[in-house]
């Protein structure tokens, strides 16, 4: 093959805010009206929308997941998990009070007991999403291996905790390698290159933050002067929050540029500062947007609580003249609208801009090697992401 390789494929992002806001509000409203049943359709439709907005080399990704298979997977998960959660929680609560005279032990044990399931669910969810994602007509895929993933994740978490976070890059790398080495595009397998130590550079802001926090504690221990402690500690805390975002974005960038798909390489020049900025602005906007309905709701709840005590002339007294059920209906509507608005605003001002940033900074290098790749068979992925849905694993997309 000639040494002059063709230009890399750049990625377009075509999603706009208004259509997404409308889609998120509409599907969210239907979810509330159906007591949560529509959430499988909501998730499917939002994914279809996001996927189609990302166009590497000018061709959109397509999400072909089906809401009914999600519902089915969820039902299957409920049959198994209801037993586990119900009985285990009950027994733990009993044991905890009988032996330790408190509920802390129960919560801790229950948390530890669910953790392997949580990682299992994450892997299964990823497998499902990849199996339902296509680009240029070819399916992605992830080999089975969820329990292996859960076992490794538990072990690495333990190591990370015992090393006070120093082995975090080892965990990030090992888990990403486990997933990537089992990921396919069509017939071709991905491969994660690089070494785990390369991720230490992504931790720099976290190290600086840790030093600042340690210094602030030392200063307080020796001088008892609160002012430098507050200043240093505040700076350290802020840098720590930034450091977490920095680590996530930077490690993603480093790992992505070491991924291989036959001859194809990827490049992601994402900026941690930009992502941090998007998230800061996004959350500020989200909080501002729920202030009004949230405030009215708080006022109504107080009105309901103190309806008997308040003097007639005050605003609360006037509310009292309304029938009780009107107040309750109003409160319920406001309560749901707070969640709806929050979800829609975070989609529009956090998920969309973050995804756009990543997409626009993503390039596919040496794309000529794609031509040798063929279709892979369909993965039934029967349980879909049922376990992830039931356990609320918290994948935003």
């Amino acid at each position: 093959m000639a040494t002059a390789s063709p230009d890399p494929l750049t990625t377009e992002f075509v999603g706009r805010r208004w259509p997404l806001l409308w889609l998120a509000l509409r599907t969210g409203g239907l979810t509330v009206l159906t007591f949560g049943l529509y959430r499988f359709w909501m998730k499917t439709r939002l994914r279809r929308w996001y996927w189609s907005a990302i166009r590497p080399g000018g061709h959109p990704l397509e999400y072909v997941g089906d809401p009914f298979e999600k519902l089915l997977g969820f039902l299957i998960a409920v049959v198994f998990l209801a037993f586990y959660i119900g009985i285990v929680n009950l027994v733990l609560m009993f044991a905890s009070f009988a032996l330790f005279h408190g509920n802390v032990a129960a919560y801790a044990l229950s948390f530890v007991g669910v953790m392997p399931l949580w990682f299992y669910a994450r892997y299964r969810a990823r497998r499902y999403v990849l199996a339902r994602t296509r680009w240029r007509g070819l399916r992605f895929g992830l080999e089975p291996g969820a329990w292996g993933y859960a076992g490794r994740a538990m072990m690495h978490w333990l190591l990370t905790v015992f090393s006070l976070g120093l082995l975090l890059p080892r965990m990030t790398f090992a888990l990403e390698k486990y997933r990537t080495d089992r990921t396919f595009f069509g017939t071709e397998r991905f491969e994660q290159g690089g070494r785990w130590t390369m991720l230490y550079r992504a931790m720099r802001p976290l190290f600086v933050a840790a030093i600042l926090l340690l210094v602030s504690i030392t200063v307080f221990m020796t001088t008892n002067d609160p002012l430098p402690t507050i200043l240093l500690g505040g700076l350290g805390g802020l840098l720590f929050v930034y450091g977490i975002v920095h680590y996530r974005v930077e490690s993603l960038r480093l790992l992505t540029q070491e991924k291989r798909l036959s001859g194809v390489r990827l490049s992601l020049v994402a900026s941690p500062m930009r992502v941090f900025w998007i998230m800061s602005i996004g959350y500020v906007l989200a909080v501002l947007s729920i202030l009004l309905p949230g405030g009215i709701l708080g006022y109504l709840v107080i009105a309901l609580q103190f309806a008997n005590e308040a003097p007639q002339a005050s605003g609360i007294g006037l509310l009292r003249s309304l029938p009780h059920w009107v107040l309750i209906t109003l409160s319920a509507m406001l309560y749901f609208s707070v969640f709806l608005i929050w979800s829609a605003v975070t989609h529009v001002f956090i998920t969309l801009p973050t995804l756009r940033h990543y997409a626009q900074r993503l390039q596919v290098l040496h794309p000529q090697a794609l031509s040798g790749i063929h279709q892979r068979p369909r993965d039934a992925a029967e349980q879909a992401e049922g376990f992830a849905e039931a356990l609320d694993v918290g994948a935003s997309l």
Partner: protein
Amino acid sequence: MQIRVGSGPPRFETAGHFLSGTHAQVDPVHVTVTEDNTALTWVDAQGETHLWPFPIIREVPDQSGRDILVLRNHYDSVQRLILPNRDIIPRLPNHAQVAPLANRGRLIAWAFAAVASVALIIGVLVPRMADQLALFIPPKGERALGETTLGQIRSALDDTGLAPIAICNQAAGQKALGLLTDTLTYHVDLPFELSVVVLDHPMVNAFALPGGYVVLFDGLINAAQTPQELAAVMAHEIGHVVSRDPTRHALRSAGSIGVLGLLFGDFAGGAAVLFLTERLINASYSQAAEERADIFAHELMRLAKIPPLALADMFRRLEQDDGGTPGILAHLSSHPQVRDRIRAAEQTQQVQPDFPVLDAQSWRALQQICAP
């Protein structure tokens, strides 16, 4: 695209992209409408001719880029035809039709299995186990469970967000409360020591907690017209303590809340639905327990020479007050059964009091127990 003037529909042709779904190449294709205006046709890069009749063409929905139209074919799940505009849409009668539901039977079967398994666990398994385990929990653990729950309730009822609501401990009031408790419990052996606590809150309510806690709200003490009425409510709550209802209840909700959380997931405000459902389950659960506690209260009152009729008086007062009872929860309490419980208290064997259960001074002190 050209527009032909004359009879018949205008000729349609456009450049497009075809995804065969067998390899990663995107074929640029020239798409036309057949002569009889019934299908789209093109030749792909392999030289193969494709013919998609209009009725089997579907639009791939929820696409964010409106600059293209993605079409699929009802009989092939991987092939895609991408057109640069939506001009063809009016000719596709079924473009918006959704894919039919595959595996309907399996879906229904698993839905039934899920409902049955949840019903079995919440309705049978968890209550049975809670009933059994409640007997084995050691007194110290039960006491801790009660303390924890009382702390949670005190924080939950606080509206200021500053501190949990106060426990009233005005000395003379405490003494009167102790007197009332002793009168009631003089004739019975309790499984553990009773702790009667008054909370500074206007709600007209009372409840029992694991470990021998009986909790009265200041609102209830003020609503009671006579010490007998208050004693009646206390006797009822002591009935719960004796049959260990609160302990079962606590273990039960530990199990069922987790399962319900599973069902509702994290959809907008799912927590509220979860909370209400849990309340409803508990309300129905407590019907039998309430009746048992009432019967116990009648007996306890007869032993203490207090006419059980006082319980009926108190229920009536609660019912009248209910219009003004603050809070949403009052509406979920066991409403229709109150009449039956009043009738039961009236029809049970009555006794003549030898002496008032509290003298006027002690009763006043008890009503002032939350005074600063």
